[in-house]
């Protein structure tokens, strides 16, 4: 029977998130509306948006705009020719781009008036440009540009897409039908010829020479001159098909106005924002060379889809809590999920039901769930055990009362014995009659028992923080560091398909031969960069997977055993993390369950990832390597340029980029400097430095591995030469001279610096003392007056209180200035100008005065002596306060400039009233006095408003 609370807590796991990654404005894309995408021959992904063209290498986006040479920031189309030049269709004609320069050839100038929506180079080498409203234009091999429009037989002048089939027939999709150009004649197809709609968006030709057409009423495939339509009746999510990618063997990827779809011979699988897309309007789709699918969206930037191998569930999808600590499955096929904070979840494949403190669970912080032979669900929590029987939560019975921090539960099906591992109190053993505890007073070294497993011979294996403990008919055996285990802190145990024991620990994992007590350990030495292993499992390709705090690690033990070098050993590990779609990198101990359908449920601190190992493909395509930057003796040089430098200009730095989109952060570079390095060096770091090379000829060579450990065969190289020195002796003398001079400078500086450090320390000390004592007391005083004033008071008291408050605040504010000026961290010109701005804004902006700061003539990083900084600031403050009190100005110009050691501060307002002299006398005298203190000159004019000029010199 269900209670009311119970019904209320039932709900759906609404959907799952798939491995999508998105790139939009936040990631540096110039705009979120994508019109076209193109994968260039060098491997970069080009993304044309409504505001700028972008080049993406997997980690960095470089954007191109009008000021780089584009005719218009609105970019519709991009393609590449055989020479590696890009042809770019913009809202104002066509640009050509080679390397980083963008221009418009004179023979394309006529197109500048039109928005170019499609570009195609045909099989004969002519270029076709489709426009919005002006038909198609052809550029022939003599650079002659010709226009064809409706008059010549095109179905409309708004061209949406152009393609060419295997018989060299050109096809044009327009807003009013389909037109082809076959043997010099235009032929048009519309609804009269069988198209479902005349408003067309996209075209593509497949490997059987069938034409695929995206229309406003579904997908159309033209096969043997027949149009076959597929639409929402066949399962397509929306009928407006905006883009088509990779049509082959009756399959294709489609972009629509309500999401994306994969078409497979009449069937559709749809993808929408609820699967992880950032927008449902898909204007462009491409498949990259790594077989990733890219979706160019309207408003959501570009999305990459990596494959169907993770299904993620978080609080957003209906989980009561994201920290997932365990799973099990009962005999009815329900899944049970333990969360740390959200109780226990039952998931029957459609609906979730939540069991928590509201319906009787002893604690919402659950460590483990276990379904026993009688189909009772045991939940091990921080505060003990709860049992769920037929949808009702029960106490576990007297026997198990008082147990706390229950981490592991196991029932031996053959004997009916039960085992319960706890975090602090050892392990409890119920033999059908009595409950016995084993802890550090008898058989264990440590009372933390994290995991329990039974082997094929009926022995119980325990993962404890005091090593692995085996119980065999009353006999205990312990395996620890002394037996070669990497750590005594064991988190979990795993028997693989060959009944071999694997141990996950705080210090990596190990394969353990229990008979001979031989451990093969795998820890941070193996390029894993982590040591924390929570759990392991094995897939049906005999690969091992390790759950860690940096993601899931795939371990190919066979490849490891056959490895001949350390590098090859390292390549048998592959990290799969958030970048590949895992819900988050940090797993939880116990958060793993291998399901009957071969999927694996993973519990993390950010939700659940359901993992399908057999869908996780080996990635055969290696990254392309490009030189992002080469710095030769402080100068950036072009990668195409062979350079000779003098022997003293021998510092070199290479900034590499490995272009891949599958796992951009897992690129492993392999490089060598021919002439210096014996073998190849491997590194994940894209920066390579050679600080001091001897004279000679060199070639720097580099290639890269992808995340699956596949190495590129192409070597990118850069050749250069360092010329030998002409006078070796001269060089030697210089070196000796430098050493002596360096020595003298060092001694001199050493004493100077030591003294400066002492003075600074004192300044900071004084500043913090003032800060702690005086400031706090005054602040109390001020707040006290505020508080008193909230009551009903006579006006005399009210005024006095107000005065006290204001006065205290003024003193705090003065103290603030003093503390600021003696605080040694605020010594630069920038600190001064910032504070000046803050003060002027605070005092004058509220009065509606416009401020014009001119600090362009100063180097903000330059240090100022304390007294100059302090006095300049106080003079400035005085000037501003004068303006605030006495001037009717509505504009104030503030200028600070420096020329060498000379400085000038000028505060000028446009007031007409000027000052009436008497009252401001004190303020102006202050300015004079402060100027004198730092040996500066103060010039004060008060004709119309104020004009304060202070000139002086540093030291």
């Amino acid at each position, binding site marked *: 029977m269900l209670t009311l609370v119970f019904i209320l807590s039932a709900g759906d796991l609404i959907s799952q998130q798939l491995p999508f990654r998105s790139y939009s*404005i*936040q*990631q*540096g894309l*110039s705009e979120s509306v994508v019109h076209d995408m193109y994968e260039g021959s060098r491997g970069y992904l080009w993304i044309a948006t409504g505001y700028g063209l972008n080049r993406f290498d997997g*980690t*960095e*986006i470089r954007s191109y705009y009008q000021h780089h040479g584009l005719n218009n920031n609105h970019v519709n189309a991009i393609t590449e020719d055989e020479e590696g030049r890009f042809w770019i269709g913009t809202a104002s004609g066509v640009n050509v781009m080679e390397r980083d320069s963008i221009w418009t050839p004179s023979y394309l100038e006529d197109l500048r008036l039109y928005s170019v929506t499609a570009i195609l180079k045909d099989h004969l080498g002519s270029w076709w440009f489709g426009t919005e409203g002006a038909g198609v234009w052809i550029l022939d091999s003599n650079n002659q540009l010709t226009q064809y429009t409706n008059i010549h037989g095109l179905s409309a002048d708004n061209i949406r897409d152009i393609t060419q089939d295997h018989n060299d027939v050109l096809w044009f999709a327009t807003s009013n039908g389909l037109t082809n150009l076959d043997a010099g004649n235009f032929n048009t197809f519309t609804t009269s010829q069988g198209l479902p709609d005349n408003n067309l968006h996209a075209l593509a030709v497949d490997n059987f020479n069938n034409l695929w057409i995206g229309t406003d009423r579904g997908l159309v495939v033209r096969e043997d001159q027949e149009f076959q339509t597929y639409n929402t009746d066949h399962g397509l999510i929306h009928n407006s098909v905006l883009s088509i990618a990779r049509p082959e063997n009756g399959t294709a990827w489609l972009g629509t106005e309500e999401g994306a779809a994969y078409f497979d011979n009449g069937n559709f699988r749809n993808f929408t924002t609820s699967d992880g897309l950032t927008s449902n309007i898909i204007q462009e789709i491409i498949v990259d060379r790594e077989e990733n699918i890219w979706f160019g969206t309207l408003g959501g930037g570009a999305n990459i889809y990596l494959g169907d191998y993770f299904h993620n569930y978080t609080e957003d999808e209906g989980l009561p809590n994201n*920290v997932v*600590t365990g799973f099990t499955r009962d005999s009815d096929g329900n899944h049970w999920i333990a969360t*740390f904070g959200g109780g226990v979840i039952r998931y029957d494949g459609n609906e979730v039901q939540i069991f928590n403190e509201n319906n009787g669970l002893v604690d919402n912080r659950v*460590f483990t769930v276990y379904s026993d032979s009688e189909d009772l669900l045991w939940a091990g929590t921080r505060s003990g055990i709860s049992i769920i029987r037929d949808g009702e939560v029960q106490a576990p019975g007297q026997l198990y009362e008082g147990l706390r*921090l229950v981490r592991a539960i196991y029932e031996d099906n053959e004997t009916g014995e039960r085992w319960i591992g706890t*975090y602090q109190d050892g392990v409890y053993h119920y033999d059908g009659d009595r409950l016995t505890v084993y802890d550090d007073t008898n058989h264990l070294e440590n009372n933390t028992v*994290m995991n329990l497993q039974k082997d094929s011979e009926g022995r119980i294996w325990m993962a404890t923080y005091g090593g692995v403990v085996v119980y065999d008919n009353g006999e205990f055996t312990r395996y620890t560091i002394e037996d070669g285990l990497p750590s005594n802190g064991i*988190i979990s145990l795993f028997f693989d398909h060959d009944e071999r024991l694997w141990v996950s620990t705080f210090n990596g994992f190990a394969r353990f031969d229990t008979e001979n007590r031989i451990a093969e350990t795998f820890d941070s030495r193996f390029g894993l960069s982590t040591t924390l292993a*929570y759990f392991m499992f094995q897939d049906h390709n005999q690969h091992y997977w390790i759950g860690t705090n940096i993601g899931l690690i795939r371990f190919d033990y066979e490849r490891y055993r056959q490895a001949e070098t350390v590098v090859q050993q390292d390549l048998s590990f592959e990290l799969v993390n958030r970048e590949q779609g895992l819900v988050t990198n*940090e797993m*939880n*101990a116990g958060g793993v369950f291998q399901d009957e359908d071969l999927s694996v449920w993973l519990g993390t*601190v950010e939700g659940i990832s359901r993992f399908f190992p057999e869908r996780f493909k080996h990635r055969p395509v290696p990254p392309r390597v490009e030189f992002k930057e080469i710095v030769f003796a402080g100068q950036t040089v072009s990668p195409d340029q062979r350079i000779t430098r003098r022997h003293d200009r021998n510092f070199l730095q290479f900034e590499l980029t490995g272009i891949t989109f599958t796992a951009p952060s897992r690129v492993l570079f392999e490089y060598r400097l021919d002439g210096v390095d014996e073998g190849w060096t491997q590194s994940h770091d894209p920066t390579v430095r050679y600080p001091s090379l001897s004279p000679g000829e060199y070639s720097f060579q580099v290639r890269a591995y992808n995340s699956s450990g596949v190495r590129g065969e192409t070597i990118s190289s850069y050749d250069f030469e360092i010329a030998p020195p002409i006078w070796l002796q001269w060089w030697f003398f210089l070196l000796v001279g430098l050493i002596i001079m360096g020595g003298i400078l060092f001694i001199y500086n050493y004493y100077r610096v030591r003294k400066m450090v002492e003075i600074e320390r004192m300044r900071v000390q004084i500043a913090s003392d003032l*800060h*702690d004592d005086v*400031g*706090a007391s*005054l*602040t*109390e005083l*001020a*707040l*006290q007056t*505020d*508080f008193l004033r*909230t009551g009903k008071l006579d006006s005399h008291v009210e005024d006095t209180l107000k005065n006290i*408050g204001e006065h*205290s*605040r003024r003193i*705090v*504010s003065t*103290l*603030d200035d003093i*503390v*600021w000026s003696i*605080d040694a*961290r*605020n010594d630069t010109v*920038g*600190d001064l100008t*910032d*504070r000046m*701005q*803050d003060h*002027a*804004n605070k005092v004058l*902006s509220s009065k509606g005065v416009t*401020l014009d*700061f001119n600090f362009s003539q100063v180097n*903000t990083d330059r240090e100022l002596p304390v007294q100059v900084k302090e006095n300049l600031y106080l003079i400035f403050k005085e000037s501003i306060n004068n303006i605030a009190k006495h001037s009717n100005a509505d504009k104030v110009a503030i200028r600070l400039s420096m020329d060498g050691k000379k400085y000038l501060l000028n505060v000028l307002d446009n007031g007409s009233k000027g000052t009436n002299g008497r009252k401001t006398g004190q303020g102006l005298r202050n300015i004079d006095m402060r100027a004198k203190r730092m040996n500066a000159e103060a010039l004060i004019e008060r004709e119309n408003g104020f004009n304060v000029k202070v000139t002086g010199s540093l030291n």
Partner: protein
Amino acid sequence: MAVIGIVEDNKKIRDLIQRYLDMQDELQCPVAVDSVEEMLDYLEKYDPPDVLLMDIQLPGMSGIKGIGIIKQKYPEIEIIMLTIYHDSHKIFDSLVAGASGYLLKHTSLPEIKESIQTLIEGGAPMSPQIARKVINHFKKPEKKSKVEYDLTPREQDIVNGLVDGLSYKLIADRFDISIDTVRAHIRNIYKKLHVNSKAEVIAKSLRGEI
């Protein structure tokens, strides 16, 4: 009604602010404690407040560290730093750790109330000193690899405007956008500051009991 919490070790200042806020119809201040640790205990047991006022120098854990921990566990809490002096370095550190604004302690009680309300309504203050630090923060070479957290060109424009001392209104005029958009951008910049620090605070609460 907005719920406010206070962490401040000066008992008098703390009591004054708490009593004042409690007297307001639209605010409620059920918790005022003198250390981050006590606040964490409180948060374990009760509903988290909407806004926390937090001192920087505290006994035990510092306010800046406290922000990181509280923000990680209770990201929905908005934190305003309280500071005696206008120390831009500490203020900036606390913004990076997750605070959404700061107040000088000697700010008058009515103004404290006003700032809290502005924050609840989505305001986001940023002074030129802080803006300049934001620019330097995102310029740091070690941040280079984390492209996804860099400022967008538009955010860069806005921070530059703040450094130039422009008001939100003038910035809005300069780029032909609304003041609300400027505010939204600034809030986003704060979020990016927070994200950059998050990775360092990834200590899992379960770690003790893995």
